[in-house]
């Protein structure tokens, strides 16, 4: 049996834990740069705020219903997620963390699931303060479905018999089923398949022919035969990206260089943390495609490194140089990013016959950089190119504090 444990409205719940006065009040959390709604409390959903709504479109609703707005505080969400996952890990022989707020657990060998699952839920809620829902079923697809239904019940739903599964799929809409995207949904729609019960009754051959191997898996999963094992979904990283929108438009090459220097230096840190080097570094710039009155420019260039690298000095140098070539005067840039591809393990370095390699020296510099920044906080030692003022930095006007990660931000009690 598998369990899917999912935090309810995770970002909103994390904010609310440290602001209990917002219990029962509507909350929305905005994406980076305060652009769109990326999380809503139940109360905010009830006022008709949708996922992905741009902030300016719902501004009136927010005012009218006194909805509390937060910028996304990933420092807080990351820490709360780690707490939840660690608590969950104690209850399952194996746990597969699927995203920041959900995890699949394997329940092999555990009996009395009807009483076990609520215990997990209560422990996580008590120990972390984050509400979770748990769906239990013989396959991951059905566990996911059970979880959605659990949210409407009392937070736990165990589908351990054929009858319970049949009941659960009867009215479950196919578009909410795990693995059904727009493509598949169109196919179902054409055949007037609306519920999972209807879908399940289609012959196996139909799944194979219309949805290839994924379809066959889905068919088996829906009939309670596990076809997607734990861990299997995770893709190996092919590329690592660091990209951000700017607070305001960037129209000068110097400021653009500052931004790219910071992104490249974050990228180098990420590569080193995963013990990888990259052979290709792609730099891209975006304008705001929603502004038809602005000239549009989406340049991108991929630079091939002679020798694979994860050194901050290398990557910052390249990113800045490429950005200056891509930049055009008179264009308002809204977003930029760097992508590292051609990733190879740190230990498998291929040297180049025609170039000097001072990798050892650079690795030492990187190691010192990482160690100082780990001990004294990110950005303590950095490239001067990154600049000081960082006026282009993301907008997060409604950012809450680092309640669990910064001593200066812990809550005062009276």
């Amino acid at each position: 049996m598998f369990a899917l444990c999912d935090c309810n409205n995770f970002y909103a719940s994390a904010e609310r834990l440290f602001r209990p006065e917002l219990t029962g009040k509507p909350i929305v959390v905005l994406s980076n740069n305060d652009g769109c709604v990326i999380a809503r409390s139940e109360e905010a959903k009830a006022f008709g705020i949708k996922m992905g709504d741009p902030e300016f479109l719902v501004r009136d609703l927010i005012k009218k219903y006194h909805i509390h707005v937060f910028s996304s505080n990933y420092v807080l969400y990351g820490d709360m997620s780690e707490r939840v996952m660690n608590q969950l890990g104690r209850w399952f022989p194996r746990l597969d963390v699927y995203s920041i707020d959900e995890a699949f657990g394997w329940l092999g060998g555990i009996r009395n699931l009807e009483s076990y699952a609520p215990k997990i839920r209560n422990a996580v809620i008590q120990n972390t303060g984050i509400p979770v829902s748990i769906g239990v079923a013989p396959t991951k697809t059905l566990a996911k479905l059970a979880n959605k239904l659990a949210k409407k019940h009392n937070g736990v739903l165990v589908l351990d018999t054929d009858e319970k599964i049949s009941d659960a799929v009867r009215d479950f809409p196919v578009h909410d089923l795990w693995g059904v995207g727009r493509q598949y949904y169109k196919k179902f729609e054409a055949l007037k398949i609306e519920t999972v019960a209807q879908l399940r009754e289609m012959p196996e051959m139909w799944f194979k022919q219309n949805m290839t191997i994924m379809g066959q898996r889905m068919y088996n999963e829906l009939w309670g035969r596990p076809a997607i094992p734990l861990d299997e979904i995770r893709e190996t990283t092919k590329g690592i990206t660091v990209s951000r929108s700017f607070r305001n438009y960037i129209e000068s090459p110097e400021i653009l260089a500052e931004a790219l220097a910071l992104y490249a230096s974050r990228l180098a840190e990420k590569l080193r943390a995963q013990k990888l080097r990259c052979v290709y570094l792609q730099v891209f710039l975006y304008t705001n495609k929603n502004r038809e009155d602005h000239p549009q420019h989406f340049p991108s260039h991929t630079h091939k490194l002679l020798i694979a690298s994860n050194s901050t000095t290398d990557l910052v140098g390249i990113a800045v140089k490429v950005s200056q070539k891509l930049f055009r005067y008179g264009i308002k840039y809204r977003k930029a990013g760097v992508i590292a591809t051609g990733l190879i393990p740190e230990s498998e370095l291929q040297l180049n016959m025609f170039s000097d390699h001072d990798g050892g020296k650079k690795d030492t510099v990187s190691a010192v950089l990482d160690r100082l920044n780990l001990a004294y906080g990110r950005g303590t030692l950095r490239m001067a190119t990154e600049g000081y003022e960082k006026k282009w930095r993301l907008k997060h006007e409604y950012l809450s504090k680092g309640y669990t990660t910064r001593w200066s931000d812990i809550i005062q009690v009276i």
Partner: protein
Amino acid sequence: MIRAFEKRAEQKISGFQSPAADYLEGRLDIAGRLVVDPHSTFYFQMKGEAMSSVSIHDGDILIIDRSLSPKNGTTVIAFIDGNFSCRIYQVINSIPQLKNDTGTIYQTEMDTLQIWGVVTSVCRNVLPKSLKTGKCRHVCAL
């Protein structure tokens, strides 16, 4: 912070391996005695003297474990009238109440007593001001 750099010194031995190497036990670390479970532990700071009669003073760092349920006599963090408040949880004639030097809240006054977590211990810097400088300025201080 110093600890992170210290490790390196141990690793590089140019002469003879220490005869104590096989007997290392790992030095005592206070965190192990203060935090039962880091994943359910939170830190708050006391502001003011509402708990001074039980020796919790302004500026003390409170260690809170959410995994515990309060019993009579437990120091807790509760959310009262829009503020986090440090209180003693008492059960008198089987009615729970939350008490500190500013007054007592009875369960009958609220639907439920909103208890956020249990205070397991209190950390305080006891240095005189003249020594609370330099590397010592962050001892139990924010």
